[in-house]
């Protein structure tokens, strides 16, 4: 099993009230603007975050995962490849897992060059991962959301070709055009670095991953729809002629680990700070025009006009925000997220028990531990990492061995043969 650490590297020196009163949204804090950023504090945070990743390597984790979001204090990795380049130099062993570069907002030729440089500098430790990007990334980068899926597909095919087809060649595509493709710096890993795709259980993406034999990493999603997606992946894999296994699946788990339950409860509240991921951007920025497929728009039309689900979303969008009321709802969200297992909170012993449940239910070969969000001191972050590395990680390895959960570096994804019947074996629901 591949176990990696993750955090959003948030710029957390932003008051929760400011996030909430800004339409309950981190993205584009309109009521304070980017003048709220203090470069001295930013400098300190970047260095601490790098040191945490060196520490994760020392503790024995297999990878350090980064991600990218633009124009928001939610995540300081607005150009994640810059951070990845630093990590390529200052770490020695861990995989540098990028989940992921938002392809539709990137210049794919430049991206092919950046990622190749990181792979070469790191000595072949890069795991690139690609996303369509949250809807708000389309707005932050002015990339037409109506062509988001088309651009994703075309950029993906282009980057792979740039890495594998000797140059120079000319490229005249639909959305991208290059007179001269000859990137020179090519990845160290051949034919190209292994690609993993993160997602939030969009069936279109899951099908695409299975077709490409790319591991699919679900990001903190509810367990039932995630299991449905694992089964969907396995069905598509069968059609493609292979048996899916744990090496095809990953899961990112938020986890607040501390010496005592009380301390863990205090730290875990950071995951819903300002509304947590639910408040990442205003709904109309998460679903910009044309970003969704027609089927997804139909689903959204039902949800957004249903008074039970839509009223609250629309109210936030139209400017009436009661800060105290939102805080109360955030606190109850914190409780229900723990009950649903979306946030694991506790001492190492508690965390191990809950992770076992997750691993039994999902059977992932990749596990990301999102160990910090919201305001949290460097000392607390180091302590959490230490507990996760010294106490939780060995237990995860034991459980993975017991359950038979190889990661993608132990079993190459897409190489497991189908049973003689041609029908795939079940991939989840094995242990009960």
């Amino acid at each position, binding site marked *: 099993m591949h176990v990696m650490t993750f955090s959003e590297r948030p710029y957390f020196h932003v008051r929760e009230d400011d996030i909430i009163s800004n339409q309950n949204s981190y993205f584009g804090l309109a009521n304070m603007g980017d003048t709220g950023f203090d470069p001295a504090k930013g400098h300190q945070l970047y260095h601490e975050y790098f040191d945490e990743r060196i520490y994760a390597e020392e503790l024995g984790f297999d990878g350090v995962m980064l991600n990218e979001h633009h124009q928001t204090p939610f995540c300081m990795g607005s150009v994640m490849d810059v951070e990845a380049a630093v990590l390529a130099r200052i770490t020695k062993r861990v995989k540098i897992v990028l989940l992921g570069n938002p392809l539709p907002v990137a210049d794919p030729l430049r991206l092919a060059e950046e990622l190749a440089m990181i792979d070469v500098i790191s000595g072949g430790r890069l795991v690139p991962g690609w996303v369509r990007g949250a809807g708000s990334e389309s707005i932050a980068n002015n990339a037409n959301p109506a062509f988001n899926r088309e651009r994703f597909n075309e950029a993906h095919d282009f980057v792979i070709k740039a890495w594998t087809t000797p140059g120079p060649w000319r490229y005249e595509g639909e959305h991208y055009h290059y007179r001269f493709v000859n990137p020179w710096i090519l990845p160290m890993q051949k034919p190209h670095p292994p690609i993993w795709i993160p997602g939030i259980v969009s069936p279109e993406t899951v099908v695409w991953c299975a077709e490409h034999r790319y591991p699919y990493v679900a990001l903190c999603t509810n367990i039932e729809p995630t299991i449905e997606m694992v089964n969907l992946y396995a069905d598509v894999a069968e059609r493609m002629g292979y048996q899916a296994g744990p090496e095809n699946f990953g899961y990112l788990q938020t986890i607040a680990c501390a010496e005592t339950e009380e301390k863990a409860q205090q730290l875990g509240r950071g995951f819903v700070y300002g509304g947590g991921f639910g408040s990442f951007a205003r709904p109309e920025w998460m679903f910009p025009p044309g970003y969704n497929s027609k089927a997804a728009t139909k689903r959204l039309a039902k949800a957004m*006009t249903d008074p039970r689900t839509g009223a609250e979303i629309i109210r936030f*969008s139209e400017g009436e925000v009661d800060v105290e009321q939102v805080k109360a709802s955030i606190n109850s969200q914190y409780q229900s997220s723990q009950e649903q297992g979306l946030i694991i909170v506790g001492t190492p012993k508690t965390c191990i028990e809950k992770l076992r449940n997750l691993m039994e239910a999902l059977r992932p070969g990749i596990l990301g531990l999102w160990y910090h969000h919201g305001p949290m001191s460097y000392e607390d972050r180091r302590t959490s990492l230490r507990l996760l590395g010294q106490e939780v990680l060995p237990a995860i390895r034991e459980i993975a061995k017991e359950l038979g959960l190889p990661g993608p570096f132990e079993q190459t994804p897409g190489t497991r043969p189908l049973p003689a019947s041609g029908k795939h074996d079940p991939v989840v629901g094995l242990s009960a």
Partner: protein
Amino acid sequence: MATPEGKEQTLRVGEYDVTVVQGGSGQPVLVLHEELGDPGWLQWHSELARSRTLIIPQHPGFGKTPQIKWLRNVRDLACFYARLLREQGMAPIDVVGFSLGGWIAAEMAVNDPKQFRHMVLVGATGIKPPEGEIADMFTVTARAYLNSSVYDQKATPEFAALYGGAQTPEQFEAWEDARAETARIAWQPYMYNPSLPQLLEGVRGLPTLLIWGRQDRIVPLSAGELYHKSIAGSELMVLDRCGHRPEIEKRPEFCERLQRFLA
């Protein structure tokens, strides 16, 4: 005499189907709808339809007209509509364009002013306003965009009749489709063609009326003034206490001037 109503029919343009709402009797008038789609049969339609036949195509990708994948900008759409007029033998025709529809009409006039007998642009996008900016429909909900389109909602009962009350899934979906299609053709630069003011120099001998609300918060009046300056011989009608929807906010004045101009 009964109030004339619009009826849907399908026109064939090459290999494409276009849904057209048609109603009234008399000389035809082409009506090009705005960026949130065909708003439905309005009171001003009924008034004008007493003396004129209204032809209201739903743009490709909007309403019931299927998307045409190769249409990627407003100039493409203008050429597509030129083909519709040519194949249907409709040119020259009077045209009234609203907001995005006004931009389409202006592009058509630039290509060939002889397609039209009269051109009326109402709060048209298409030009970068010298002062202010065109309100960005893509960073707000469809409803928020509509709410900012009229000057005084309380004084505009037709607005409440059209857009008030709970939103239905069908309406949400229709607006999302319209927003997606508008993004396909007008995402960047947002809602204008940088060369249009220069190209409008070629629109000669086409009687043109520009109608603008003085308090238009979607397309600032300065854009209307630049249209006026760029189209030789054009007239500019500015309505006070009026936003982006003169046809529903100031219907009597709008209809009177329109009928007089088209006569």
